[in-house]
C-alpha cells in the first residue's frame, strides 16, 4: 500500500482548493443540493463531509419526499389520542403506556433492496437493525414480526429470494432469542425483482426507564461499542475512495465492493444484554443505534439532539479493514454497533460492563460547548459542520402529484365481468383452487423456520391472526400485535386501501381480546419522482391518518421505503399497518379459529 492513501481531504485542503471537482452526482446529490452544502459550509465539503451529507440527505435517511405528507399524522393527532403515548414520531420508535407501570415500544422498518441483492443477509440485517432501534429506547426487545412480499410463487427469482429471506429472518431472530409472533407472506407479480422485507420489533421497559438519546453535557464521552467497523455497505461511498486511491490496484477492488452487510446475531445478542445492563445500572446518558449511514448518522443525530457540539477522533474507531478512508469509516454500515453518551465519572463502570460481555468499547470523542460537529483524522480536521444541517435540515421536496390517467379504467374493470361458479361442483372447484393458491395456502413452510416459543411469554402466534405476548408474569398484562395490508385494494384506492389495512389490523387485535392502543406503519411505494406514485402515497397517508382519527389511535412511528420498482413498474402501493393492543390479563385471550369446543355458536357481526 502506498502512503498517499492516507492523505485525506481535510477542511483546510477544502478551503484552499475550492474548485476540486467532487463526485456528488454519483453519490446521489442533485446540483442544487450540492450547492446548498457549499452554502452551509461557506466552502466546498471535504470528502468525508460529502459522504455524510450524501447519505444523510438521501431519501432513506432524510424523508425528503415524504416529510410534507407525514406531517399530516401529527396535525390530525389529538390530545385525546395522545393519552397513552410516551414518545412518538421522531424518536427511534414510538412508546406507549400499557398500564401497571409498563411502557411498550414498537416499530416496523423495511430492508427491501438489500434483501433482493443478498436475500439471507439482507433479511437478517433487517431484523438486526430494527431490534437495535428498540434497544436504543432502553427497552428489552421481546418479539419480532415479518411482513413479506414476493413476486409470483413460481417465478424463478422468487425461488432464489424467498428461501433466503425466510432463512435470514429466522437465522437472525432465532439466534437473538426473539420469538417470531406473526407476519405476512403475499405474492404479486409487481414484487418480482423487488421483494418487500419489513421487520417489526416490539420491546418493553418500565415507564421510568425510557431513554431518549441525545449528546448533552459538555465533557461527556462518546463511546462506540459493539462490532468493529469494516467496509460493509459503503458501496456508494467507494466512489470517493477511488479518488484518494488514485489509480493503484486497490482502487479497482474497492469500487467493486458490494454494498451488502453481513450480520452477526451472536454479537447482537451479547450487545442487547450488555446495553440492558448499562441502562439498568444508570451509567449512560443515552444510547443511539448505528443503522443506515452508520457513524455519520449516529454522531450527527446525537449532536443535534443535544445542547452542545461534539468532537470525534476517527483514529480511535476500531477497524476491521486496512486502509479505510475517513469517508468510509463514517459511512460504513457495519452491523451490531451502538454509540453511547457517558459522563466521565461513569466511563470506568461502563467499560467494566462491556468487558463482562466481551464487547469492544472505545471512547471516540466528547461533547463540546461549541455548536459544531468536528471530526479529526490523523490529527487533522476532516469534518466541521453544524450537526443539525446534516441530521434534520436536509432538503424537503413537494413532489408533483397526479392521479394516474388509467385509475378510472382500473376501477371500472370490476369483478362483475368475471364468470362465477354456478353449480356446487364449480363452487367446490373454486374453493379448492383458492385454498391451494399461494396467497391463501398454509404458511407452515415459513413459520416452521421461526422460533415462536423462546422466552416463554408467547401466548398466541401462528396460526393466529394476531401475536399475543405476556409482558408481566405477575399480573398477566400483555400485548397483541397484528400487521396487515392488501396492496390490491390500495392500488384501486390508496386512501380507502390504507384505511382497510388499518381496519384489518385493528380487528385482528380486537378479536384476540385486546384493546387497540397505537399504530405503526411501513409505507412501501414506487419512485417518488413518479407523480402517480406520489399520489398513491399522499392518499395512503391521508387514509391511514383519517382512519386513525376515526378509531382514536395515534400513529407513533413508521418508516417510508420509496423506489420499490422494477424498471418503470412500481410495486402495488403497500402501506403495511401494525396495530398494538393491550390485554389486562393474557389468560383471557381469544384464539382465532372455530371448532375448539363442541357446540360452539357461530355469530356473524356487522353487515
Amino acid at each position, binding site marked *: 500500500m502506498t502512503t498517499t492513501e492516507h492523505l485525506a481531504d481535510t477542511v483546510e485542503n477544502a478551503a484552499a482548493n475550492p474548485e476540486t471537482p467532487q463526485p456528488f452526482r454519483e453519490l446521489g446529490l442533485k446540483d442544487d443540493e450540492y450547492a446548498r452544502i457549499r452554502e452551509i459550509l461557506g466552502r466546498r465539503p471535504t470528502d468525508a463531509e460529502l459522504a455524510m451529507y450524501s447519505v444523510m440527505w438521501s431519501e432513506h435517511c432524510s424523508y425528503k419526499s415524504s416529510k410534507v405528507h407525514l406531517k399530516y399524522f401529527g396535525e390530525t393527532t389529538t390530545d385525546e389520542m395522545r393519552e397513552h403515548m410516551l414518545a412518538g414520531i421522531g424518536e427511534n420508535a414510538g412508546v406507549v403506556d400499557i398500564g401497571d407501570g409498563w411502557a411498550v415500544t414498537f416499530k416496523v422498518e423495511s430492508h427491501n433492496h438489500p434483501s433482493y441483492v443478498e436475500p439471507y443477509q439482507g433479511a437478517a440485517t433487517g431484523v438486526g437493525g430494527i431490534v437495535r432501534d428498540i434497544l436504543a429506547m432502553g427497552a428489552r426487545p421481546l418479539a419480532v414480526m415479518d411482513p413479506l412480499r414476493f413476486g409470483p410463487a413460481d417465478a424463478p427469482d422468487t425461488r432464489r429470494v424467498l428461501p433466503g429471506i425466510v*432463512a435470514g429472518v*429466522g*437465522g437472525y431472530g*432465532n*439466534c*437473538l*432469542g426473539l420469538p417470531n409472533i406473526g407476519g405476512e407472506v403475499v405474492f404479486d407479480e409487481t414484487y418480482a425483482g423487488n421483494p418487500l422485507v419489513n421487520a417489526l420489533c416490539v420491546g418493553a421497559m418500565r415507564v421510568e426507564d425510557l431513554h431518549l438519546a441525545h449528546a448533552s453535557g459538555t465533557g461527556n464521552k462518546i463511546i462506540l461499542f459493539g462490532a468493529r467497523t469494516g467496509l460493509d455497505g459503503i458501496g456508494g461511498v467507494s466512489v470517493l475512495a477511488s479518488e484518494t486511491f488514485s489509480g493503484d490496484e486497490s482502487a479497482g477492488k474497492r469500487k467493486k465492493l458490494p454494498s451488502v452487510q453481513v450480520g*452477526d*446475531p*451472536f*454479537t447482537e*445478542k*451479547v450487545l442487547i444484554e450488555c446495553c440492558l445492563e448499562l441502562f439498568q445500572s444508570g451509567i449512560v446518558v443515552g444510547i443511539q443505534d448505528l443503522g443506515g449511514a452508520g457513524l455519520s448518522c449516529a454522531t450527527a443525530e446525537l449532536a443535534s439532539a443535544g445542547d452542545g457540539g461534539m468532537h470525534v477522533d476517527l483514529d480511535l474507531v476500531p477497524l476491521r479493514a486496512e486502509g479505510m478512508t475517513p469517508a468510509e469509516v463514517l459511512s460504513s454500515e457495519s452491523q451490531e454497533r451502538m454509540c453511547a453518551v457517558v459522563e466521565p465519572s461513569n466511563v470506568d463502570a461502563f467499560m467494566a460492563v462491556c468487558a463482562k*460481555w*466481551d464487547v469492544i468499547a472505545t471512547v471516540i470523542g466528547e461533547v463540546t460547548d461549541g455548536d459544531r460537529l468536528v471530526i479529526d483524522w490523523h490529527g487533522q480536521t476532516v469534518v466541521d459542520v453544524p450537526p443539525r444541517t446534516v441530521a434534520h435540515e436536509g432538503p424537503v421536496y413537494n413532489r408533483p402529484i397526479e392521479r394516474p390517467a388509467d385509475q378510472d379504467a382500473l376501477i371500472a374493470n370490476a369483478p362483475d365481468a368475471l364468470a362465477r361458479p354456478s353449480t356446487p361442483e364449480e363452487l367446490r372447484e373454486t374453493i379448492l383452487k383458492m385454498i391451494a393458491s399461494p396467497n391463501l395456502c398454509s404458511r407452515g413452510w415459513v*413459520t*416452521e*423456520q*421461526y*422460533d*415462536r*416459543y*423462546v*422466552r*416463554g*411469554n*408467547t*401466548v398466541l402466534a401462528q396460526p393466529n391472526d394476531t401475536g399475543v405476548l*405476556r409482558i408481566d408474569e405477575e399480573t398477566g398484562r400483555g400485548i397483541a400485535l397484528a400487521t396487515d395490508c392488501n396492496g390490491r385494494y390500495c392500488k384501486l384506492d390508496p386512501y380507502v386501501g390504507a384505511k382497510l389495512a388499518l381496519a384489518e389490523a385493528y380487528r385482528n387485535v380486537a378479536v384476540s381480546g385486546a384493546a387497540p392502543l397505537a399504530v405503526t406503519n411501513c409505507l412501501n411505494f414506487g419512485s417518488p419522482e413518479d407523480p402517480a406514485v406520489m399520489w398513491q402515497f399522499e392518499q395512503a397517508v391521508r387514509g391511514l391518518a383519517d382512519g386513525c382519527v376515526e378509531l382514536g389511535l395515534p400513529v407513533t412511528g413508521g418508516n417510508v421505503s420509496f423506489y420499490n420498482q422494477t424498471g418503470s413498474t412500481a410495486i402495488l402501493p403497500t402501506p403495511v399497518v401494525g396495530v398494538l393492543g393491550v390485554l389486562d390479563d*393474557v*389468560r383471557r385471550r381469544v384464539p382465532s379459529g372455530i371448532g375448539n369446543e363442541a357446540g360452539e355458536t357461530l355469530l356473524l357481526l356487522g353487515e
Partner: protein
Amino acid sequence: MSPRIGVITFPGTLDDVDAARAARYAEAEAVPLWHADHDLRGVDAVIVPGGFSYGDYLRCGAIAKFAPVMTEVIDAAKKGMPVLGICNGFQILCEAGLLPGALLRNAGLHFVCRDQWLKVENAGTAWTTRYEPDAEILVPLKSGEGRYVADQSTVDELEAEGRVVMRYVGGNPNGSRNDIAGVTDARGRVVGLMPHPEHAIDALTGPTDDGLGMFLSVLDAVVKA
C-alpha cells in the same frame, strides 16, 4: 429449604429464563450460573439450557464445552449430580463427552419449530421418573441441528442398555438415528434432550404442560439423594 437447580448462561444462551421458570414452577429455587465462573454455587442439579452459545458458528456447543463452569459440571456429573442438557445444552454435553454421539444439521436442512410428540422410553432417569413408561408427551422442538448421530456400536449399546430416554413419534423431524430425541449416561443422571420441556410447563404459553414432569422428577431425585 427447596432444592436448588442451577441454570447456566453462556454468551448466546437464550432459553435460560425459560429453564429457570420451569424450575420455579416445580417449586425449586433457580440459581443462575455464569459461564466464566468456576462455581456451581452449591446447587443440587444443573440445567444446560438452549440457545446459540457463542453463536454456534463453529459447531453447536464446540466452544461452550471449554467454559470454566463446564469443568465444574463435568466433575459434578461424574459424582452423580443430575444434569439436563436441552437443545444447545444437549449439544454441549455431547461435545463435552458427558453423553455419546453428536448432533448434526437437520436432514431437511431447515430450522424446524413445531410441537412434537415424544415417547418416554426410559422413565427411570433422574429427570423422567414422574412419567409412566411409554407415556407420550407433546413439547416444542426448535432446532436446526438436531439430528442425533452416533456410530453403530454406540447406538446398539444405547438401545441395549435402555439409554434412549425419549424418541420422536408421529414422524422423525430431523433424521435422527432410530428416532432418538434424547439419551442418558450409563447411570441415568445426565440427560440430553433435543426438544424443549421448559417450553411446555403451562398451556397458556406452550402446547401443553407435559414438560413439567422432568423438573418435578429431578426434585424427587435430589430429595431422595
